[in-house]
């Protein structure tokens, strides 16, 4: 059995809109809506061509799950993603503080 290499999704690789849509399972139109509502931001905009960082795949896949599982429109998904991101930021701060507490397990 050949060994497959798992690739990190925050490796700085750039993705086109079509690639992001394909990897997330979202239609391109929904990815555009989510960008319009500020759920995530293209790393580069050149006219009508958008480029995304590979980390956006994680966010877009989460958007896909939330949209389907809660039957939400893109605006609601964008709002929810904002809260999730905020929670993750707070959890990261908590993790950082806990890591610095001597003896904390």
């Amino acid at each position, binding site marked *: *059995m*050949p*060994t*497959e*290499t*798992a*690739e*990190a*999704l*925050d*490796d700085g690789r750039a993705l086109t809109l079509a690639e992001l849509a*394909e*990897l997330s*399972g979202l239609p391109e139109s929904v990815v555009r809506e989510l960008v319009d509502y500020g759920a995530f931001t293209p790393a580069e905009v050149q006219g009508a061509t958008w480029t995304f960082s590979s980390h956006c*795949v*994680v966010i877009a*896949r*989460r958007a896909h*799950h*939330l949209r389907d*599982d*809660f039957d939400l429109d893109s605006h609601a998904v964008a709002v*929810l993603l904002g809260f*999730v991101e905020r929670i993750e930021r707070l959890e*990261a701060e908590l*993790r*950082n503080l*806990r*890591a*610095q507490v*001597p*003896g*904390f*397990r």
Partner: protein
Amino acid sequence: MKYKDYYRILGVDRGADEDAIKTAYRKLARKYHPDVSKEKDAEARFKDVAEAWATLKDAEKRKAYDQLGRYAEGEEIRPPPDWGQQFGAGRPGAGGAGAFEDIDLSDLFAAFGGGRPRGGRAAGNAPRPGGDYEAAVQISFDQAFKGAELELDFGVVEYDEEGTPHRVSHPVKIRIPRGVTDGQTLRVPGKGGKGVRGGRDGDLFLTISVRPHPVFRADGQDLYVDLPLAPWEAVLGTSVQLPTPAGAVMLKVPPGTRAGQQMRLTGRGVARDGGKAGNLYAIVQIVVPTTATDRERELYKQLAEFSTFNPRAQLEQEAARAH
């Protein structure tokens, strides 16, 4: 095939109307959806809830489910011979003996009425991409630090020529790159479901959780380790052996080191290929002996008499300023 009571999972009566089922699903999805819930076993609970919802929200699937009959949770069942044809269930009922032994109830209803998951047969002649697979994988701290090879086996549903679903083994050997961190998502291209008629194969997405290490505490790529020092070591300075994930190193502790001080060992944290390594921080703890010998007590007394050091000087100043 084991029976699952979808009504019980959603907490509704068998006669519940569409709205009641939807409300029950939404309430439970809010509680257990892995993206918004921190409940224990949220992912497994949500899987059941989503499975129940996927069947009961669809009038035809619900009718077919009801026609299966009522059984005890987990009881081994087999649909009646004409069950699949009666409901146009993609002929899952057409299989011979043993056709349902290797699948779940969810697999049966996923195949129902042509509603196969992505990766199943394509409608018409259009290429159809394979479905993506998702899995949560737990690895050790050492595996995350050094990288690892894992062999995973996913049970996935495939369909035979008759359209009967079967759960088949899908073994994959995966190289996890060094430096993955807790909560990170990795993609294994092309290792999801098979594409149909030239459609691309799906991907495998792995969400990694890293088991805590007994010595190192991780914050992304940075690591923290406690460095206990005796009072005299902190005052006079010393050299100590400090564990790092790559092996012990000698660390020079300067004189006058304070409790809580963080000593940075640049690049000794978690490293990634082609990326910058995190740092290791040694957090100083001043540890005092809980019992002292007579001689030690004598020496401490001498120090107390001789020393002019006031550890509460700053506190006294601040308290005075506050009044």
